[in-house]
């Protein structure tokens, strides 16, 4: 099907520009999710009961509502109601970031809980405040353990980011759809979009794998190694 190949070749630069948008949205969301997810996890593990409950509700909210509903709720609902003028691109990063913070908080919570209790005890015994003990002893270890879960979270957000096309964010899916409906070359264009996503998934998970190896604590035994 030379026609299809020509369609792909013609649309490729346009789709690749979209992949830049996708990458920015995903990195923004992962970053926001990290910045919020770590304190959420710490609060849920070490906080007072009221704080734990509040975080539980937050996590329930953002994990419990479908992405598309949240995108519409924030973009068409909240932005209008509060009369704030945010671009679809910004709203996409915020909503994906908030959802990711809920998921990431649970990744970090699991990692923190998997550390032996003695680590915190030893830090306290040296005279560290809980804040110092968590910052210098608990989190450096927990974040290492969280990388495999984080890699999973990356691949999920990457794919979820395609839904933001519904707000008109000019990412890969929106562009593929735009060209496909005009050229009637649906098969090659959506196929190409899929391949771009596959490559981005591979690059990200591969990168995190390298990071995991790089920050591995020497002497620690590794499964399958």
């Amino acid at each position, binding site marked *: 099907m030379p026609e299809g190949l020509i369609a792909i070749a013609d649309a490729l630069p346009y789709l690749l520009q979209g992949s830049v948008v996708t990458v920015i949205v995903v990195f923004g969301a992962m970053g926001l999710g990290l910045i919020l997810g770590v304190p959420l996890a710490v609060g849920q593990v070490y906080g007072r009961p009221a704080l734990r409950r509040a975080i539980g509700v937050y996590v329930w909210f953002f994990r419990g509502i479908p992405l598309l509903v949240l995108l519409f709720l924030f973009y068409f609902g909240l932005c209008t109601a509060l009369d704030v003028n945010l671009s679809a691109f910004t709203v996409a990063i915020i909503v994906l970031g908030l959802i990711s913070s809920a998921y990431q908080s649970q990744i970090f919570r699991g990692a923190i809980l998997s550390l032996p209790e003695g680590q915190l005890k030893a830090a*306290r015994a040296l*005279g560290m*405040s809980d804040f*110092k003990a968590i910052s*210098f002893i608990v989190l*450096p270890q927990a974040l290492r353990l969280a990388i495999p879960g984080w890699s999973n979270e990356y691949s999920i957000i990457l794919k979820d980011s395609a839904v933001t096309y519904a707000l008109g964010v000019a990412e890969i899916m929106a562009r593929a759809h735009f060209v496909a409906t005009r050229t009637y070359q649906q098969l090659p264009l959506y196929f190409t979009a899929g391949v771009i996503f596959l490559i981005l998934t591979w690059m990200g998970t591969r990168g995190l794998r390298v990071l995991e190896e790089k920050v591995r604590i020497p002497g*620690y035994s590794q499964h399958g190694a």
Partner: protein
Amino acid sequence: MPEPILRIENVSKRYGKKEVLRGASLTVNKGDLKILIGPSGAGKSTLLQCINFLVRPDEGRIWLEEKEVHYAHKRDLYAYRQKVGMIFQDFNLFDHLTALENVRIGMVKVKGMAKAQAGERAVAELERVGLKEHTQKYPAQLSGGQKQRVSIARALAMDPKVMLLDEPTSALDPELIGEVLAVIRDLGENGMTMIMATHQIAFAGSLASEIIFMEDGRISERGTPEKILFQAENARTREFCAKIAEFYGEKR
């Protein structure tokens, strides 16, 4: 003239209905080595952890150098813990840090010392426990005996007034126990004040200034090693000492 460093009065701890510690009192003078013995579940570990408030006592008061510890005030609590070194049965080294970093981190993050200066001190403390060659190794690369010696160096680097040792050799392979006991003996000879829970009866017999026998959360008998090990008043104490002496294969 004995100089009291640490005074513990009537410390109690309950978990639900279970009383794990019932009114323990203890005065520790400078240079003392108090040895806690007793069956597991007697409250030795709880007592040690109550002393530096890793476990919050339900009742009781503690004085360090004649100053009462107000542990509800965080600042006081953190300052107090700096002066009370703690050695755990399972070492609890910080797994992501090298031996050197383990020893240095308290000086840098708690005492606010400069990294270079703290590093020099850390090397000196590691040398003192015989680990000069291992400063750059991570805990997972060290043997149990080496790990416990790093943890002793980590505590010493904070210049503690008292050290609490919670069965420091119980998690070690038999052939590694000696190297750790040698370090502790050395500390004692240099005047360090210590409270140590252990089953190493021979060690206790030769070095303790007092042996304290605990059972059911109570201090049930205390005295010189000669008295506790050979002429205990309490039948339980005699029975226990005979058993662990037999178990650890030590001549009496």
